[in-house]
């Protein structure tokens, strides 16, 4: 097996990630309304399963994950059913879609053919490189859920309101 400790996360620039998020929204959320209905995209448009699992967060500290076979996203049952966690969950879905669109082919480069080699892979990826994968998925999720243009327009309106208050 290839030496996993020397494994490097493929470099994807911020601009490329942001563009990927824009392209994703254009293709799968052409309505452009906010908030982006990420669960609807997952189930209806990407045809991925949503698999709530009891105890995922409490016992293993995992919110959500994309299955290796890319057929579904597994989520913690309580997070999924409780309105209180809705925003975190929306980010989790968008984050997993980041892995789906940016990192789906990573596994094909390693001969991982059973749970034991998967575990070795997970444990031996350098922390720094693992962090890059997570960072890229986070960037994708943030830009997917919060379109920059819309955010700037809202900020401009807020700033104008603040200025008007000060000029009174």
């Amino acid at each position, binding site marked *: 097996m290839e030496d996993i400790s020397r494994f490097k996360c493929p470099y994807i620039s911020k601009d490329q990630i942001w563009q990927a998020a824009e392209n994703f929204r254009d293709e799968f959320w052409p309505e452009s309304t906010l908030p982006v209905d990420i669960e609807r995209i997952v189930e209806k448009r990407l045809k991925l399963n949503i698999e709530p699992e009891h105890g995922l967060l409490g016992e293993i500290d*995992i919110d959500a994950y994309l299955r290796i076979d890319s057929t579904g996203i597994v989520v913690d049952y309580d997070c999924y059913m409780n309105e209180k966690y809705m925003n975190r969950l929306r980010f989790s879905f968008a984050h997993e879609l980041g892995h789906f669109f940016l990192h789906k082919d990573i596994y094909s480069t390693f001969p991982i053919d059973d749970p034991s080699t*998967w575990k070795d892979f997970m444990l031996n990826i350098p922390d720094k490189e693992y962090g890059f994968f997570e960072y890229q*998925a986070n960037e994708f999720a943030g830009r997917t859920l919060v379109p920059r243009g819309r955010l700037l327009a809202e900020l401009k309106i807020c700033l104008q309101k603040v200025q008007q208050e000060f000029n009174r």
Partner: protein
Amino acid sequence: MFGEFIKALRIERDIGLREFCRRLSIDASNWSKIERGVLAPPQDDEKLEQIARVLNIKRGSELYMELKDKAAVDAGIIPKDLLTDQETLSSLPMFFRTVRSEKPTPEELNKLIERIRGGG
């Protein structure tokens, strides 16, 4: 068969998994497994009628009969006690999103593998 059939109708009617399970007072984890053909569908008439109502399927209609037939055919699905290595591997995570944003520990990985292997 039953699972795919119901999931297609549910999605066609724009009902998310959470909402569907809430309306039926059923566990979303189990229902997701039924839709994926991992668990057998309910067999009692009352539950099947409730499902039909949520999906706006008229009792006695062709679609209703199809729902009942498919539920009967899939009654024989027996959940596996232990998944094979390949089945377990395909259900494992590509990456994790953990609360502390760090790689999981070896113990957490073992726990996850055993859960998936044993739980289907």
